[in-house]
């Protein structure tokens, strides 16, 4: 059901992990529909020097996180803004129709991290809006 590229990025996710002293962190998604994505950005000057992600979601969610981080790594903030979910999907040789929403999350997570960065540094990034789905820290854990 997934392309070889998707499977490759699922199996060997690039940039998976955390950045201790991140310039911006964005967490998007909704535990209700399954997908949670967190992106860590290390920005120096105007350049994304490093990027890491963590994802709770399906194969497509993991693969799009991985690919999206690949696409923004080393780019300027402005170039990163141009990385759309469509670009991510194309880079993965496509996704099944029911999985398109997972790729949207990757775009949103990067935007959310950029927003966090912009807030912390009091700057404005062209075309960047406040993330609607930033759920921030997860604080409630039901015991099972």
């Amino acid at each position, binding site marked *: 059901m*997934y392309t070889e590229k998707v*499977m490759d990025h*699922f*199996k060997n*996710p690039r940039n*998976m992990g*955390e950045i201790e002293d991140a310039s911006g962190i964005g*967490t998007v998604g909704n*535990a*209700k*529909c*399954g*997908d*949670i*994505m*967190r992106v860590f950005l290390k920005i120096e000057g105007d350049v994304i020097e490093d990027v890491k992600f*963590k*994802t*709770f*979601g*399906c*194969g497509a*969610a*993991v693969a799009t996180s991985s690919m999206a981080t690949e696409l923004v790594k080393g780019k300027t903030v402005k170039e990163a803004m141009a990385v759309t979910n469509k670009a991510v999907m194309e880079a993965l040789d496509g996704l099944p129709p*029911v999985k398109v929403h997972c790729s949207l999350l990757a775009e949103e997570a990067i935007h959310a991290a950029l927003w966090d960065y912009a807030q912390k540094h009091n700057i404005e990034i062209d075309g960047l809006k406040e993330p609607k789905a930033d759920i921030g*820290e*997860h*604080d409630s*854990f*039901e015991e*099972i």
Partner: protein
Amino acid sequence: MSKIIYLDNAATTQLDENVFEEMKPYFVEHYGNPSSVYSVASESKKAIDIARERVANSIGAEVSEIYFTNGGTESDNWAIKGIAENYVNKGKHIITTKIEHHAVLHTCEYLEKQGYEITYLNVDEDGLINIEELEKSIRPDTILISIMFANNEIGTIEPIKEIGEIAKKHNIIFHTDAVQAFGHVPIHVNEMNIDLLSASGHKVNGPKGIGFLYIRKNIKLKSFIHGGAQERQRRAGTENVPGIVGLGAAAKIACDNMEERAKHLIKQRDYLMEQIEKNVDYIRLNGHRTKRLPNNVNFCFRFIEGESLLISLDMEGICASSGSACTSGSLDPSHVLLAIGLPHEIAHGSLRLTLSHNTTKEELDFVVEQLKDIVNRLRAMSPLYEDFVKAQK
């Protein structure tokens, strides 16, 4: 990935070689239409008679009470819509549960749109209905109780005999979706007061595209599929002769070997549950620990998502299934997992492993080993796990 370990026998099973051998002559050689007059067709007729007898024997029914259908889904649709239509003068109230298969649930939802009232019984955390709640929900206009024999996701076996007694006491027709139970656990329609029972061939190493509906003699149930006079005028359409033969053969093999297979499977199942519980943290067993199908194991693994788990297992040659939203085709995780009280994010990380009588201990050991690694890897990736670990500190 050289060897496949198939642990999704609740989804479908491998056709038994011996069953296929019995079916073979009815494809090219004995292809006659069983409704025909000439003697060439009598081979087909005889074959159907034998299959019907085997199926009847397997649930303690009479031959004339077995009607072949296209599968479990058609049987469920026929039973429920049929009773709704035939007994509408008595009332429009039906009792079922929150954990039925979609073949029952979506049929009930369809009837709701036609003005029927449906009570969806709750289940407890193990997936069991409450007999008192059932009895209390009976009304003068209740025409049908439809409760599954065993659940397809969490494997819980419902108290069918008690349900049958309640139904009988109140003179209400009792239908059970036994698609998962048929051929796996003993069924006796008379002892259990079952009036209608659905089953499907491909869940018991029989062929796909064939099933049956048991209809107790005295039940008035009109046709659901109208047309020719097949199946004593109750189910029209040229008979799927090889399919029927295969269903009969599979029913016989399943019943002849049930005791022995169940004993073996329960041992395997319990071993698998034990090993998983021993090797992986933060998990929850879904379904009742003992009142469950001999071949069903179902756990939630916290902080990870089911589809990722499935794909990772698949890469190791292990076939399994999940009730996660990402595999369910809708935005919600399985209604069964929600009904037993799991919060959404935990329901997401469910894994169902359903064994066959051919599953070996070595296979299970391999699965546990892989599972351990995969769960670790996925948790390392999971923002939820990260938050959890931080909160612990």
